[in-house]
């Protein structure tokens, strides 16, 4: 999965995408050039539930085309054979469609959980899965607050499957398949910063149409997929109890304590061992006296 950085930069230049210079809050790593994370803005007010995104996703990833249609009261979930689903919700403002897929968190729990870096936050933003590294422990599934990674339980050579934001297409300078093909322009691809601005603009322009919350702006430390809709997220099946701090931060304290324990505890143990040696001698003498 080696990434040809130079080639990538060229493509970006051709595509005319803005390259952010210097370090931004969302910059991925300490590479020579920093680029902003890409993301997707999904607008429920525009979505008509045609499932073109589902079909183009299935086609792109060689998965079976969807057979069910979105239905109010039925929650379809992503699984091994579908990486994105559109659900229909009856809300206070009528029927609203919502597309679900991987949220591509800024600081993904799955990638922090992965002990082989198989689950990996690319510097372009998509969180991808790399089969040559994965050992199938499923800790990513345990950790993901959105329950996104799925596992092929019925395969002898199982894969972890989830949306990868069409990472290969992004490297070629193209949009993800769903964003490319959405006829209603409900799915917008761009840098996360632009998308948040766009979302704010839409809300500000039509405050009576939109609910004023951008889901994904802060949830779980911010996600690459951000949502605007007519109604608050709670009516659309979103998890609303998530913390705004990133999930990897939860185990940071423990991990930071490890080096200190590793250095200090052996010294302490050795010290106790040395100072209690006399105990042993006393006891041995006692034994002999018996």
């Amino acid at each position, binding site marked *: 999965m080696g990434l040809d950085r130079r080639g990538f930069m060229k493509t970006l230049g051709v595509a005319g995408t803005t390259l952010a210079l210097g370090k931004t809050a969302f910059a991925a790593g300490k590479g020579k050039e920093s680029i902003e994370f890409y993301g997707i803005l999904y607008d429920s007010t525009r979505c008509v539930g045609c499932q073109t995104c589902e079909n183009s996703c299935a086609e792109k990833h060689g998965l079976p085309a969807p057979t069910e249609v979105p239905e109010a009261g039925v929650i379809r979930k992503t699984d091994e054979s579908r990486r994105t689903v559109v659900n229909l919700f009856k809300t206070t403002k009528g029927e609203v469609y919502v597309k679900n897929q991987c949220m591509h968190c800024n600081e993904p729990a799955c990638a922090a959980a992965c*002990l*082989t870096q198989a689950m990996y936050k690319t510097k372009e933003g998509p969180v991808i899965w790399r089969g*040559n590294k994965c*050992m199938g422990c499923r800790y990513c599934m345990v*950790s993901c607050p959105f329950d996104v990674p799925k596992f092929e*339980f019925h395969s002898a050579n199982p894969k972890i499957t989830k949306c990868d934001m069409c990472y290969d297409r992004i490297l070629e300078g193209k949009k993800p398949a769903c964003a490319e093909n959405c006829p209603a322009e409900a799915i917008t691809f761009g840098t996360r910063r632009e998308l948040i601005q766009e979302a704010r603009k839409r809300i500000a322009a039509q405050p009576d149409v939109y609910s004023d919350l951008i889901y994904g702006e802060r949830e779980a430390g911010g996600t690459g997929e951000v949502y605007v809709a007519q109604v608050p997220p709670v009516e659309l099946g979103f998890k609303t109890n998530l913390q705004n701090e990133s999930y*990897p931060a939860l185990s940071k304290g423990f*991990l930071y304590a490890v080096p200190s324990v590793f250095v200090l*505890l052996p010294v302490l143990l050795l010290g106790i061992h040395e100072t*209690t040696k006399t105990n042993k001698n006393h006891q041995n003498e006692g034994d002999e006296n018996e």
Partner: protein
Amino acid sequence: MKTSNFEYPIAKDNDGKTIWKFLISEFKPKGKIFTPFNIISVPVILLGIVLIVIRFWKGIGSITNLTQEVPWGLWIGFDVVTGVAFAGGAYVLTFIVYILNNQKYHSIVRITVLNGFLAYVFYAGALLLDLGRPWNVINPIIGNSFGTSSVLFLVAWHFLLYMLAQLIEFSPAVAEWLGAKRARKILSGMTIAAVIFGITLSTLHQSGLGALYLMAKDKIHPLWYSEFIPILFLVSSIFAGLSMVIFEGSISHKVFFNQISEKHNKEQDGIVRGLSRICAGAMFAYFALQVLIFIHQKRWDLLGTPMGYWYLLEMIGFVLIPMLMFVSGYRRKSINMIKTAAILTMVGVILNRLNVTVIGFKWDEAIRYVPSWMEVVVTLTVIFTEIWIFRWVVRRMPVLRDAPIWAKNQDK
């Protein structure tokens, strides 16, 4: 050259047999074949092997009830997380005997370390059954794929290193069995280093097993989730391990009575009483921590729910009550009460680990995960196989019985 290498150590201590003849004779069964344990365990192990073959052939879902929402079930929650807690006796006892230099417990160190070592080999080994892509298991060990931000990375490394440390701690017994005098001298010289390393590793991975679940904040029932899971897991591994030592000791003393010298047999009650006092102390600390966390998180309103009653049962029935029984058993010198307390404590530890990993995990999901009978059989297969190996070793090596005289002379 060749003959001297092979024959020298064995010839002296094992009736002049060569090492190969000696090893072959050691592989023959000792003891009765048709014991109740064998009659139960052999069919279970055979069935388990068939199930394991199916699992690798058709996938994990073919024999487990795991779902996309509950990806870790009995094999992780019980075999690994609970099994490792029970193996904690080894680090606690090596701390008492080698670090505090308290010789009272010296006679049970070997069997505890053996028990701990085998528990790690088998229960951590059970992880391999649960890995979807086990051929990549070496990636975090050798490869260029160090996921250093992962708690599981730490736990995996620690399992591996701790197994090595325990092997070194136990190796003098193997050397005594083989009559390898020089090897024994070198190996027993490494004991203190291995013990210090092993205790450090244990501290970190016993707590690390709890830290694994820190990121599953919204998935675990709030009565069992707190940022202190790592500390709770560490403290409870102390009395989990020691209860296992008491429990295992009471069985070993019946099954292997002919291995145990009269002196050690006499010491046993004093050892059990001493352990019960340590257990009670650790449980008091644990209970106090749990109460603090409970009050601090203001979880009173959750107590009136079914999960709340379940929580109270665990805390009172299987922590507070056995703790008081340990104290009273120690005071009244009632070994039976201590043994009962040890069993209750073990049930409590199983409950606690399963509550975090399985029962309280996605407790609000409409369809709950319940392990399939096949998962249970595979778990039993792992446990029974471990007991077979354990028995094999105890009957052959100086684990419970006294070390040979030459070995004792080396230590002087």
